[in-house]
């Protein structure tokens, strides 16, 4: 459950904030989200990665279908990357890498700054 919650929050941030801020600011935002929510390293990595990756993949796919523009094929040809479909994949992968490492960084940061609570009974 926690995983889906984090995933959905990541997607919401990318979908609503990214149109107004560059990708590196999204990375920062995802790191902050992980610091705030402290989802755990695995959930941060996969939730952040899939959240941003799927958002980017989804948007590039959506734009391709909606506009029917030949531009992805043309760009792919200029950069020598097989096809526009591959570019959609690369976009998704890039989003995944940005998202996953940003969230994981936030999560790990939370771990080192979080003070061990000293008012708890730990037994023993």
């Amino acid at each position: 459950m926690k995983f889906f919650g984090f995933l959905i929050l990541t997607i919401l941030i990318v979908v609503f904030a990214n149109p107004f801020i560059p990708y590196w600011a999204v990375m920062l935002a995802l790191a902050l989200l992980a610091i705030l929510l402290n989802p755990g390293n695995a959930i941060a990595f996969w939730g952040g990665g899939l959240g941003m990756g799927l958002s980017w993949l989804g948007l590039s796919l959506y734009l391709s279908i909606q506009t029917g523009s030949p531009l992805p094929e043309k760009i792919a040809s200029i950069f020598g990357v097989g096809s526009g479909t591959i570019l959609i994949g690369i976009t998704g992968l890039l989003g995944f890498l940005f998202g996953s490492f940003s969230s994981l960084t936030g999560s790990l940061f939370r771990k080192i700054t979080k003070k061990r609570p000293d008012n708890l009974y730990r037994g023993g």
Partner: protein
Amino acid sequence: MKYFSFIFVLLITLALGYFASVPIGPAPPMGPLMDPNHGFWQNMYSEDEIAEDEIAIPGLQGTVTVTYDENLIPHIFAQNEEDLYRVQGYVTAQHRLWQMEFQTMAAAGRISEIVGPIALELDRMTRRKGLAYGAELGLAYLKEKDPETLKLVEAYAEGVNAYIDQISSAQLPVEYKILNYRPEKWSGYKSLLLLKYMSDMLVGDRDLEYSNLRKILGEELLNKLFPEFPVDNDPVIEADKVWDFEPIQVTKPDSLNFPNDEWVIDPLPQPEEGTGSNNWAVSGKKTKNGYPILANDPHLSLNLPSLWYSMQLSTPGHSVKGATLPGALGVISGFNENIAWGVTNATKDARDWYKITFKDETRGSYKYGESWRDSEFRIEEIQIKGQESFIDTVVYTHYGPVVYDETFKSERQDINFALKWTVHEGSNEQKTFLMMNKAKNHADYNAALDNYTAPAQNFVFASKSGDIAMRIQGKFAVKWKEQGKFFMDGSDPRMEWKEYIPNAHNPSTLNPERGFVSSANQHPVDPSYPYYVFDNSYEHYRNRRLNKRLREMENITVDDMKALQFDDYYLHAAEALPVMINLLGSYLPNDESAKKYMQELKSWDFYADPNQKGPTLFSSWWSKTYNEIWKEWAEFGVPVVRPSNYQTVKLLKEEPASQIFDWGNSANIETASDHVKKGFELMVEEMKKWEEDEGDYAWANFKRTKIQHLVPQFNSFSVENVYTGGGSGILNATGSRHGASWRMVVELGSDIQAFGIYPGGQSGNPGSKFYANFISKWANGEYLNFNLRKPDDSDASLFITTFVPKP
């Protein structure tokens, strides 16, 4: 341990973020480019999908309505001219920002800023030719003499800047994203620079090559191979025109010496072969409806985004429509409610070269007559992407800039040349177009042209009141015979241009007896014209075909004129092929293919239609033969021009045994028929290989017309293998990289009927459906409806945008 993992992952994240934000090698930063919210994915939208209903821009005085028709052609309705040009600037930038900036960067010699050191030599050449210098003088001229035009030019610039100021990173043209730079502010200076760039594109000179040929061939042979007037001269202004003015007298000084060296420097880049244009107007007495019809098709490099951008520009006082140049104000070739006009290039050796004798190595002064004059130094700082700036010093004499010197392209340290060119003089071409847009009659047209300097053009004209006219307008020096044909000695004042031909003496004609006016880059006049006329680039085929057709046609309709623009008759082939077949005699290589080719040539009707094989075979045979005849000239070791196709055919026909065909040192005496035979063998060889490798050799497949993006490396932004006919020297002048860059036909009846098309699309965005959507229509000889629209016509509109003042 947890500190270690944090730092490790942090570093990976930072590295990802960092490397995605910087260019790697020639590749742009990947992050911004691939980000689907800001990167190239956003450029997939076509203009109608992101249309805005209302846009507020600063400086506007009233409300301006822009109606786009189904082809994304904007129709701007403003209350005054300042608003009109402000919105023209904004709208043009919306669709063509990258192109208009890139072209002015090229004109200013600033391409190295965008692409790096690879363009340094090009930029140095551009700067040393002084285009930016000319634009600065043009701006100074406006400031001093024409504040009215300046105000409009600045309104246009502010309009462009209003767009640049609000452009989102998502909507930034994709070329900026790939080349990784941002648009800078537009200015009036840039608009003027664009017009200088047109001069550079259209004007050439062959002084260097002629100087060499004069030395090598001698005067007599030079004049035989390169006569100043051809035998079949069919000039722009009808040959029987009577010149009713008293010309300014100029006499060739006695005992002149042209510098008599052989020059081994490279000549300046010349306008591309095939650059030229047609225009004509027929009077009502020759047309079916009794109204004049005007046609214009400028032939230029076929590029994407297209050089042209179509618009209607309206105020309560006037309504004009046609082709604009992105970056310049008004319509360049078009029509309004009263008149229509069009342009073709009318070059007349507008560039001359003077050898400069400097006093010493500082080059601070140079010899002029008995005295020394001071030179000026202009420092050109060329910024280079990824490198330190390059500083170039260009010496300016009173003639103009010294293009070649010891630091640039000269292997001979003792030689310096100054370039004399009308582009370096303050002038006001922009005003010509502003006035022409509003012209109501022939007198207004003439008044508009009086402001025009360069590049010289044949301005065709027709009016609703029934007039047709042609005027060759530019600023031309009064020259004595052969002045400027060769390099000249700058230390001899007698070599200098003294006066300019008054506008009233420029060749012109109004309602000539023959019922039509026309131009196709041929000689402007008959030899009876009282001023010296010379240029190497005059064309000898399109004009004769055009005038022949116009003479014989009656009851002309708009469709006839469209067909004539698309006329594929290959006059050069019609004149040359029978001569070549005759010279070949009974010789035919014993080869099935050779027989087939000959059969196809013999049954060909001389039309260069896309499906024909004849034009392929002829053009191959001709170019091989031509090369065989003149190839020894390459051994001169210096730059020269070769005789024209026209002159070569004439020699083949009239003097096949002439010594002219026996250049070089071969033991046998060569005649015309030897070259023709050799050419035939080479053609057979080439065509057999072509059939093996490529298959079909129909004309369109062979010539491979390509509309190329301004950055040739972006090949997928180009459109290749366009299936269309025509070629260089044919009225439909569409070769492989050049051709009709704009076609327009206008009938000036009570309701003006207008048609236009160009090989491109209104959008400069390769992701838009309006980027190249005209090309297939253009290739088929079809046209778009270009009738004027009224402010309240809202049918068949794509969308409407209202511009309002921004408080």
